[in-house]
């Protein structure tokens, strides 16, 4: 596989997103709400008496939202980048160029993964900075950075993002409509949302160890999804079975 070829495919998608603004903005919706909205919720909470004790638990749960963010951010791009090609019937001429299936797949994945991870990273930076600003007086120390957020940003988040990209490629191969692909694609957040709810209700403790175990589980699922995607993204399949 030639990365330069994959990069050509990704660059073309980047160019498309600058023209389809709604796709581009879809990366940011969740990130903006979480990274700017939630710190103000925290600020409100800190004004109540006795907040210092429950604050770290709340913050830890909020940190996990950036795993969901990493999974949601690529949905719009990944589904548009494949279903869009399907609807425009541009896969046939694309496959007729001297580009391999893997290079096209890698390009499409890069196009969804990089902006999503970038947006998530920026979101975390904004969130952590605001939270530190609002809570330092009360806690007497800077809550962020800590190991949990480092694992989320650099390990669990990217793995969840990758899972989301792969899952969306699979959805796209069965879908003919960008909107429904996006809706189905967004279901990726359900299992992660469940983890979040469990942590808020204190059934599951989001300790560093648990996050690492979670990362290992997602990594295993990533590998399985990778092989499924690889089997789906073959020129013969694309031209004769993708409907």
């Amino acid at each position, binding site marked *: 596989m030639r990365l330069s070829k994959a990069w050509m495919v990704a660059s073309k998608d980047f160019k498309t997103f600058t023209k389809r603004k709604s796709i581009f903005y879809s990366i940011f919706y969740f990130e903006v709400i979480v990274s700017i909205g939630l710190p103000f919720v925290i600020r409100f909470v800190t004004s109540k008496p006795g907040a210092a004790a429950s604050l770290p638990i709340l913050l830890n749960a909020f940190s996990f939202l950036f795993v969901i963010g990493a999974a949601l951010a690529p949905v719009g791009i990944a589904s548009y980048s494949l279903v869009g*090609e399907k609807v425009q019937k541009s896969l046939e001429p694309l496959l007729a160029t001297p580009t391999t299936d893997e290079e096209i797949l890698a390009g499409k994945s890069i196009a969804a993964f990089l902006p999503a991870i970038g947006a998530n990273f920026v979101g975390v930076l904004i969130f952590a900075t605001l939270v530190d600003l609002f809570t330092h007086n009360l806690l007497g120390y800077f809550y962020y950075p800590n190991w949990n957020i480092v694992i989320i940003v650099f390990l669990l988040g990217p793995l969840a993002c990758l899972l989301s990209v792969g899952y969306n490629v699979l959805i796209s191969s069965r879908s003919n409509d960008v909107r429904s692909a996006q809706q189905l694609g967004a279901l990726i957040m359900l299992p992660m949302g469940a983890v979040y709810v469990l942590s808020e209700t204190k059934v599951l403790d989001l300790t560093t160890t648990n996050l690492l175990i979670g990362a290992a589980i997602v990594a295993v699922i990533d590998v399985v999804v990778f092989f499924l995607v690889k089997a789906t993204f073959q020129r013969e399949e694309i031209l004769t079975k993708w409907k």
Partner: protein
Amino acid sequence: MSMIEVKNLSKKFGEFTAVDNLTFSVAEGEVFGLLGPNGAGKTTTIRMLCCLISKTSGDAQIAGYQIGDDGTASLAIRKLIGLVPDNIGLYDELSAYENLDYYGKLYECPEDVRKVNIEHFLTMMELWDKKDQPVSNYSKGMRQKVAIARALIHDPKLLFFDEPTANLDPESARVVRDIILQLKKEGKTIFINTHNLAEAQRICDRIGILKTKLLTINTPEELEKTVWGSKTVIQVEEVNDQILAAVRRYSPKDLSVEENKIVLSLTDPQKENPDFVQAIVDAGGRIQYVTQLNPGLEETYLKVIEETK
């Protein structure tokens, strides 16, 4: 040297045979047309030759490279061909220039070559002044031209067109045909799928008629001759028994009369026609017209297809 060499090529989708045992070759610089009804396997054939789908059995070589061999041969083949598929698949959001530039990159043209070629082909298609508009604003004919320019961007030796003028108005269709003829002049080898018989007749050196199997293959003129034989039509003022008796004396292969027209099947019309004309005149017939029966490609095609039923 032949550019395309196909031997016993077949394609099955599950149990269904879409293309059955094709054998033919296309010479370098030739324009070859594949005619056939809907579902005949034309698109399937092009897709196999462009290494887009696998073959089920048989062999095909493109410029000496075996299709379906391995990744390297497929890449080599795809580098030297250009494809205009039936669904042209342009990127609507992008301009004509951006569409071509992307394909230029994918075909590994260096930036300076890409620039020159894009300008050359968009100018040739009379689209240069609209180059920065998104192609979603283009008419069908303009989009087809962009798709052709896209297939030419890396200056391929061999071009595949899948029904390039379907859905175009007569004027746009003519422009597209003229472009194909221009490419032929430049020495490109061209493989074209079409339903349009007049088009095939005008631009193809040879024609294959496909209906899952390759029914026949020949030049348009020879095709008519072999299917119909040579026929002469002699129109007289009035046909009578004396005239017919005179004609029969020269024992034509086949004779039929439609109103005042005598239709004769002959082996060598140029040698035999004068004898028949003389005989009719001697029998008192007054000749109005002597013409060669020209059924045209359409009739020929329909007859060939009909015979498979």
